[in-house]
């Protein structure tokens, strides 16, 4: 397994249902052994990508290559991929072992061999004791693990997971995230995981592919997407963010200024050549995370502006303040996140404050 070889490549793949286009010219490479998450709001086309790869739907145009070979026309039952469906799609009339062994038995693998591998797969998903139960007798989390065991027993090159955690409650979902990630490491198989939950995506993925309206908006590591979003959509969709509109100013090495309603802000543009290249005066946003914003002290000379706290919300480990800033303290609503303290926050609603963020913690996205 070399994480640098491409396992699967999508080349200008498009898909329409009738006259309604759902995917526009998608290019995507999946590396061997990686955990790739396709993240997007509902209707972004993320599930369609998964269904095209799995062979559940035909392409409208473009091609899908596996190890460099075109598999666009290969029928679903010959593709070396297996899917974990959103509703699990367990066969209700078969026991857990019947479900897990199905993929082997339709290939006429010997009974003994099937029994051995089913036991192995169930052990892996920690369901050894449930082999003789029927799906209706299992909890949601257990069903989900049966679906996973059923998919991985055929030793597919790629496992496709279609929002498999959506039906689980929060606590179970967190456990399953850790579990999925550990299984993926153990069996060293490529996972393509589709979700609309960005927290889920950050927690598990090696790389995340953000989709919107049938386009891929950005592909990168969770860290990249969080700190270097390349467009307004990703900046807003991926985690909480403050976006302040303005016009780009001159480049100063790895920094660039932007003229906004909050005055001149200086933001980092390191590793983002397209921001260096953008014309002066172009519309853009300064983006900075609520946790990057802080109460200004005497040392802070750059990116300093004033505002009024309009609301305070206690959120457990941290407290989030909503701040009205800009001219007349009304033009811009910002969010500030500070660690909570047992004796109450140092902030008070209605208080006028002076705020700042470090230039290397601010980023730019083109509008």
């Amino acid at each position, binding site marked *: 397994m070399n994480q640098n070889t491409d396992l699967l490549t999508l080349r200008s793949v498009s898909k329409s249902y009738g006259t309604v286009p759902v995917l526009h010219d998608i290019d995507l490479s999946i590396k061997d052994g990686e955990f790739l998450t396709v993240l997007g709001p509902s209707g972004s086309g993320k599930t369609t990508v998964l269904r095209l790869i799995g062979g559940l739907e035909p392409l409208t145009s473009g091609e899908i290559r596996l190890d460099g070979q075109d598999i666009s026309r290969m029928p679903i*039952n010959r593709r070396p991929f*297996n*899917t974990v469906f959103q*509703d699990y*799609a367990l066969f*209700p009339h078969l026991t857990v072992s019947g479900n897990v062994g199905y*993929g082997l038995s*339709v290939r006429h693998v010997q009974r003994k061999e099937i029994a051995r591998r089913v036991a192995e797969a169930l052990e892996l998903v920690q369901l050894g004791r449930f082999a003789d139960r*029927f799906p209706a007798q299992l909890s949601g989390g257990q069903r989900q693990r049966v679906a996973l065991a059923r998919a991985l027993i055929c030793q597919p090159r790629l496992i496709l997971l279609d929002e498999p955690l959506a039906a689980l409650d929060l606590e179970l979902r967190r456990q399953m995230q850790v579990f999925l990630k550990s299984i993926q490491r153990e069996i060293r198989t490529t996972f393509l995981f589709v979700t609309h939950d960005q927290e889920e995506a950050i927690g598990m993925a090696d790389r995340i592919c953000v989709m919107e309206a049938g386009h891929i908006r950005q592909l990168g590591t969770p860290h990249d997407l969080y700190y270097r979003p390349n467009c307004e959509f990703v900046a807003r969709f991926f985690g909480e963010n403050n976006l302040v509109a303005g016009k780009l100013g001159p480049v100063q090495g790895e920094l660039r200024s932007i003229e906004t309603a909050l005055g001149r802000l200086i933001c980092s543009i390191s590793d983002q050549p397209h921001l260096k290249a953008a014309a002066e005066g172009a519309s853009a946003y300064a983006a900075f995370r609520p946790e990057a914003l802080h109460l200004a002290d005497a040392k802070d000379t750059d990116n300093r502006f004033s505002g009024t706290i309009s609301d305070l919300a206690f959120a457990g480990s941290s407290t989030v303040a909503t701040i009205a800033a800009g001219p007349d303290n009304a033009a811009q609503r910002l969010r500030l996140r500070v660690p909570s303290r047992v004796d109450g926050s140092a902030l008070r609603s209605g208080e006028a404050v002076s705020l700042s963020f470090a230039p290397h913690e601010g980023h730019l996205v083109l509008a």
Partner: protein
Amino acid sequence: MSALPRLSTIFLAAITTLVAVLLYSPLFVPIVSSFFTISHGSVDWSSPTLSTYVALAENHDMLVALRTTLIVGVCTVILSVVSGTLLALYYHGRRSGRSLLQFIIFLPFLMPPIISGLALLIFFREIGLERSLLTVVIGHTVFVLAIVYRTVLMRLQSMSRTLVEASYDLGATGWQTFWRIILPNLSSAMVGGAILAFALSFDETMITILVTGTQSTLPVRLWAMMRLGFSPDINALVALILMFTVLLCVLAARFLIPRQVATERT
């Protein structure tokens, strides 16, 4: 609806009971009276007896009619379950032509049986098919097909589409998917449909009278007996048919009410 005033609750209960008694008590009269002898045209309530049932069992014509009914029923069930299931499979998920087909399938079931029976009779005469048990079986199949088709189609529609996708995804062929996934999930609907079809065929009278040859089924025999006058073993026969039909319907319900709601679409 706990807010209903007490008086109106009592009133509603009284009405409901009255309607139930008026509608359903006649059904119990023959059952009860079948256990008593009848003399001079009225029931003798003083001595319960099974003599009517003994008389029925010794009635040779009746036993022959019962055998005929069973043969017709079994043949009808086989024919209607096979063709109903095939039709449902073929038209499931297909839009064009489906509503027309459904209309045609349901027509004989909804039309007055005498019309269906006459249409069949004329048809058989035109194509030169002698009236026999075969024509009875065909008539019954045309009549009950709607029930089987509908039952199987409903189950198909409630089956999650991803089950079939999952089967293909795991490497199964179309044939394997049919035998190992689709058919097992339809089987209880098919059994339920078969029982209903049998119950309908068992009771069917009008079409049978029109298209049968020399042999009569149990309901036809019963009808003939009624014309000759009321005899005590009719009570026994009615009681038996009633109980048998109830039994079939209870059985059918057991197969048709889905066992595992939980696994199907959350």
